[in-house]
């Protein structure tokens, strides 16, 4: 088992290197650091000295890949590639435009993100499964038909409208919870209820419809027919047999997103003013803070790969037919 985990993790290394190369190419080869400096300083009336100063402050004044002027290993390490991309592996993200340490920001901001994303994930999963189970129980009836119709309509509405509509109805019209903001500790609940509800409802359509298909596929299998043939009630068939087996693809399918919960949700956080990693990223994109965006791309990818490894492990745990080798 341990050997399997180690080997599976080793597979992730070339992918991490690939991601690093992609981000490096994206941030430094498409546009030169001079271009970025001009962009940040404003395109017009920018002196070459100002550009040099901007680059020197951020450490972009080195050669890209190979420093011929340096000595020994410094030829490789005193370059933008090493300083800005290889250092990411050591979780050294450098500083943002406002000169704050990005790694520290990430450490403090991941908790509000998690406080929002974890409830959305858990409640959403429960709600989706219940809805899908309901539709599967009443399959091929009016309830099922309308359930699917509602799901398709829910899927067709942009996330933005769920947020705007929710804020308008619940916060502005009914004044039940604050419209946006955040507080630490137990007070956070007041601010989190609305975003959690919106997150769950927004994902309900696609999720419930997918799970309904999974349930129906499971119900077409032979063991279900056997269970019915031996006289079990439909309810028992559904809850004791189908649910248990259909949960395997559902749960292994969601494992991959669990590590990414730390990243939070981009749109929801910025709409509700929650100081998590999602709103941090949005602010960075809008302020064109390349260092922060680069760091978030890297962390997001790492968390996703962790998710992939966990998914493989979860298969081996729930399905005895999958072997470790």
């Amino acid at each position: 088992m341990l050997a399997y985990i180690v080997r599976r993790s080793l597979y992730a290394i070339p992918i991490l290197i690939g991601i690093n190369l992609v981000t490096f190419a994206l941030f430094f080869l498409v546009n030169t650091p001079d271009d970025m400096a001009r962009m940040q300083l404003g395109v017009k009336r920018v002196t070459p000295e100002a550009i040099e100063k901007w680059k020197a402050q951020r450490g972009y004044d080195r050669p890209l890949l190979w420093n011929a002027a340096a000595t020994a290993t410094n030829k490789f390490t005193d370059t933008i590639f090493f300083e800005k991309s290889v250092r990411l592996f050591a979780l050294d993200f450098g500083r943002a435009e406002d000169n704050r340490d990005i790694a520290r920001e990430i450490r403090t901001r991941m908790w509000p993100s998690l406080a929002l994303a974890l409830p959305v994930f858990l409640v959403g999963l429960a709600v989706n499964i219940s809805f899908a189970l309901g539709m599967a129980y009443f399959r091929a009836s009016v309830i099922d038909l309308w359930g699917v119709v509602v799901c398709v309509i829910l899927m067709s509405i942009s996330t933005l409208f769920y947020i705007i509509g929710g804020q308008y109805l619940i916060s502005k019209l009914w004044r039940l919870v604050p419209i946006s903001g955040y507080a630490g500790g137990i007070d956070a609940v007041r601010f989190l209820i609305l975003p959690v509800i919106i997150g769950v409802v927004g994902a309900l359509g696609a999720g419930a419809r997918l799970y309904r298909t999974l349930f129906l596929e499971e119900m077409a299998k032979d063991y279900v027919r056997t269970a019915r043939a031996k006289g079990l009630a439909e309810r028992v068939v559904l809850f004791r047999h189908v649910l248990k087996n259909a949960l395997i693809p559902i749960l292994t399918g969601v494992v991959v997103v669990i590590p990414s919960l730390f990243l939070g949700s981009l749109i929801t956080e910025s709409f509700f003013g929650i100081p998590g990693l999602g709103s941090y990223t949005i602010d960075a994109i809008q302020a064109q803070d390349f260092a922060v965006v680069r760091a978030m791309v890297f962390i997001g990818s790492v968390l996703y790969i962790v998710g992939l490894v966990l998914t493989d492990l979860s298969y081996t745990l729930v399905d005895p037919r999958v072997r470790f080798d």
Partner: protein
Amino acid sequence: MLFLLPSDVLVWLLVVAVAAFALYCSRRPHLAAPWARVFRNRAAMAAAVFLSAYLLVGLLDSLHYRPTLPAAAPGAATVYSVEVRSLLDRLLTPLRTRLEKTYSAPLATRLFQKELVQSPDGGARRDFPRLRYGGAQLARESERGRDLAQRALAGAAAALLVWLLAVAVGRRTLARRWPGAAWGAAAAALGVLLAVAGIAAALATAYHVLGTDRVGNDVLYQALKSIRTSLVIGTLTTLVLLPLGVGAGIAAGYFKHRVDDAVQYVYTTLSSIPAVLLIAASVLMVQVYVDTHPELFPTSAQRADFRLLSLCAILGAVGWTSLARLLRGEALKLSELDYVQAAHAFGVSHLRVLARHILPNVAHIVVITLVLEFSSLVLAEAVLSYIGVGVDPSTISFGTMINAARLEMAREPMVWWSLAAAFLFMLALVLAANLFADAVRDGFDPRVRVGAAREAAA
């Protein structure tokens, strides 16, 4: 002077390609049969009518030209404006040019904000001023209700006439040619569409049907202009996604070994980077490029168009991995089949095997994926434009409309009409696309049919 933007050219090329594909399908029973199944589906037919209406607006908006400026002196050479307009702009000239000062509610006759108004007796007071165009023909505002009803009735009557004509013509031509399709649903959808369009058009002659925005632009005009942006993003992305996805996926599944390893490595790497962040980073880089190379884009329309196209390219370059994964699996299965092995034994070249045996057999997966992808791309545009990494701020799109309207959420009473317009137009488009995509999937996916048959037997 005709002045096609690069995206126009690509849109029309795509139209030609789709027409060619339709012709190709109609000649081949194994592709014609699934499409016939799709069009027997009532929801799909109704959705297709709505999608065609959107497509019509989008295509009208994809024929750009530069209007002639009035000649400075008689006999002087004709000068063209730097402003680029489309055929749709031409048709909607009244909507485009009748600007108010600022916000006004749908069908209103007065502005949304109080201003200093000169009263007839010479004094000045703060009041809601009358609109320049909205209901300006009314002598007394109390006549508005009657006027609205009259116009709506006239519009509805015209719509009914057009509908009766269309149904009569359709019954003699289309329904005779393809008797199996769900023409009833199509006629009903057309009726709803014509009624809404007719009434809106009749009211739009004298009112702002969906109100005006902060700088007094007609919201209905903006919503209609947004359609092209959505359609371009939903369809042109295909031009990048398709070659990458099909090429990489089939090559991996067919050649296996090293090619497979390489392709798998590339798509695992790409799909590991969270899509939104990858898109955001790429768009930021394009922005830097555009801002540092102003000489490449002489007009603002060209700059906006370049950003629109690069957004499509980025979305395609990020989105091909799932198609490649699906096709790899399918090609892996197909390449082991007897007829492919037989082709190898006869010494048929790889290229020929791919073209004759593999590609036609994965066509259904490609069609299903592309149709399913469309609605998610339309939704993605709104979100990306909201975060500021979508289309150029000067491009009218659902995302930029929502973004502008959101700032007014806090206003009391709320300015809701821009949001409502974007919501309704987007919902209709995405819902129609989703319903159509479902029918396409059901029509093309052999597994679904087996499942449905089993379900029916159970």
